[in-house]
């Protein structure tokens, strides 16, 4: 009983969050990417998916994977306030994951985006889905965003034309270490939405069913020769 009371003290408060409705996106290969909200009972498979990338220095996968690993633990163990996780799956195989959270009712904090299957714009689609969730479903006014890799900086700060808040440091600083903070405002989101946010809803039930059980990838383009049972 004491342990349960202590656990209650350790848990982060949670804001009410509207669920993210799943959508499907056709990729250049003709495959279908299902983007949906991850369930906490899927944390183990998500952690298993991210773990091998912690050792990949190239393109900063190491820092992104290590931080996402801890964010997934914070999410499943209720140590992070109002966090959500979206996953992109092709025939159930995880192609990418994004993490994010609500800091307040009106301000969101974008955490990380990781792409496992590269070259198909999966990361771009998942990041856009994350912003869609913050602005359209959680009805937030803005999202604080930072980049920890050059790829992220090009994709988000430059291509979205994010608002630079670094001049307001230290009053405004993203919780990922206070590196220069940018913001996606509601107006900015809707101005870029036609070019950035895609997907079909509702998802055909038979297509949605393909992503019902998530599968950790057997291959990582980032890790030549990777074999799941050897990790």
């Amino acid at each position, binding site marked *: 009983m004491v342990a349960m009371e202590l656990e209650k003290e350790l848990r982060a408060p949670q804001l009410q969050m509207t669920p993210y409705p799943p959508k499907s996106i*056709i990729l*250049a*290969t*003709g*495959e279908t990417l299902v983007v949906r909200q991850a369930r906490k009972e899927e944390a183990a498979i998500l952690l298993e998916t991210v773990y091998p990338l912690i050792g990949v220095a*190239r393109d900063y996968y190491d820092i992104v994977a290590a931080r996402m690993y801890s964010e997934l633990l914070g999410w499943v163990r209720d140590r992070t306030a109002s966090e959500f996780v979206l996953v992109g799956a092709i025939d159930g195989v995880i192609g990418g994951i994004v993490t994010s959270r609500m800091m307040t009712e009106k301000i969101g904090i974008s955490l990380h985006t990781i792409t496992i299957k590269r070259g198909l*714009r999966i990361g771009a689609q998942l990041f856009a889905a994350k912003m869609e969730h913050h602005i359209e479903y959680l009805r937030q006014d803005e999202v604080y965003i930072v980049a920890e890799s050059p790829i992220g900086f090009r994709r988000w700060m430059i291509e979205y034309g994010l608002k630079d808040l670094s001049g307001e440091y230290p009053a405004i600083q993203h919780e990922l270490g206070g590196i220069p903070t940018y913001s996606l405002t509601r107006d900015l989101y809707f101005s870029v939405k036609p070019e950035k946010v*895609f997907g079909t809803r509702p998802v055909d039930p038979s297509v949605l069913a393909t992503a019902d059980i998530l599968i950790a990838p057997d291959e990582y383009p980032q890790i030549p020769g990777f074999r799941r049972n050897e990790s």
Partner: protein
Amino acid sequence: MREVAVVGIGHTAFGNLSQYDLVDVMGYSAMDAVDDAGIGDHRRLIEQVFVANMGGGILNHQTAIASSLVSRLGIEPAMAETVENGPASGASAVKTAWMAIASGMVEVAMVTGGELMRSVTGWEATDFVATLLHPEVEYPYGLTLPGFGGMFTRMYMERYGLTERELAMVAVKDHQNGMKNPFAHVKVECSLDALSHDSESEAANPYMATPLRLYGMCPVSDGAASLILCATDSPAMKYFQKSEPVRISGIGSATDTHCVHNRKDPLHLKAVELSAQRAYAMADITAKDISFAELHDAFVILEIAISEEVGFFERGTARKAIAAGDTTISGKIPINSSGGLKSKGHPVGATGVSQIHELVKQIRGKAEKGRQVKNPKHGLAVNFGGFGNNVVSTVCSKM
């Protein structure tokens, strides 16, 4: 003039090599060529090095790259020069090396084309390439090469009825070839339906310069390719026993107006037509003798338009040949067996050298399974500089 053969070829993977130094990347492909030529112990046979590079000074803050490469290879006092001709720098460097040997000035020369473009954003890379446009009447008005590609595509579609689906067929075919090329940058096996269904293709294949979509354009790539050339009657040929030599039987270049709007018909790529005719004349062949070709598809429309200018198809009819599968590996005239710029990538200074690397590999019969052209005799490479204002065509032939 003396006959000139390619006696060694080298290549790096194309893609993101931004963690490496430019001269290291070039040095890797150069040593690969030395190894292919079998002159590891005799690399001082190389009397002259020509480097093809467009952006070292702008993108990498590095100049005098040719002398740097010579030092990296340890072959001083070899002569060294850098050749810059925009995206046709590679083939121009090959042409310069060919002239040096054909004239009798040197016996053995190396050509290395290389570029590191991924250290800047895609937008900065696009701006860098746009520096080749007219500085007063094109560039200041925001014109870029993708912009020209889009306008050219629109004009071609309106005149000849080309469809977006036919454009996508070129990308699908190039990616099928690129999937089998170990050097290719973008290895994605594309679906024609996914790339060409208007309602569904926005996510996977968004418009970049209407009507050109993402998969209608080459990627921004890093990489290098090298060739070693020798006069066929040179005593030095005895050292090149490891790999089959392939003759450069024809090479020609031509220019057109710098300003595209000064052309009577912007769809007529005169410099392509003329450079190919010059190369054919030197090789004493016609377009009908060409077994396969590497054409400069920085935008997929260019593969279509160039294939017509070099005489493979009548103007406006390449679309039918593409739909019929004539340009696939097993087709009548395979085009871009390497994956082309579209899939293999386009490190601008390296591209022209890489195209000739592919000609040599195919003629030797050493291309990877599934992308080897059947019994090739003559291959054509077209390296397109500017928006068609300085083009180099090269014919390589089996000896």
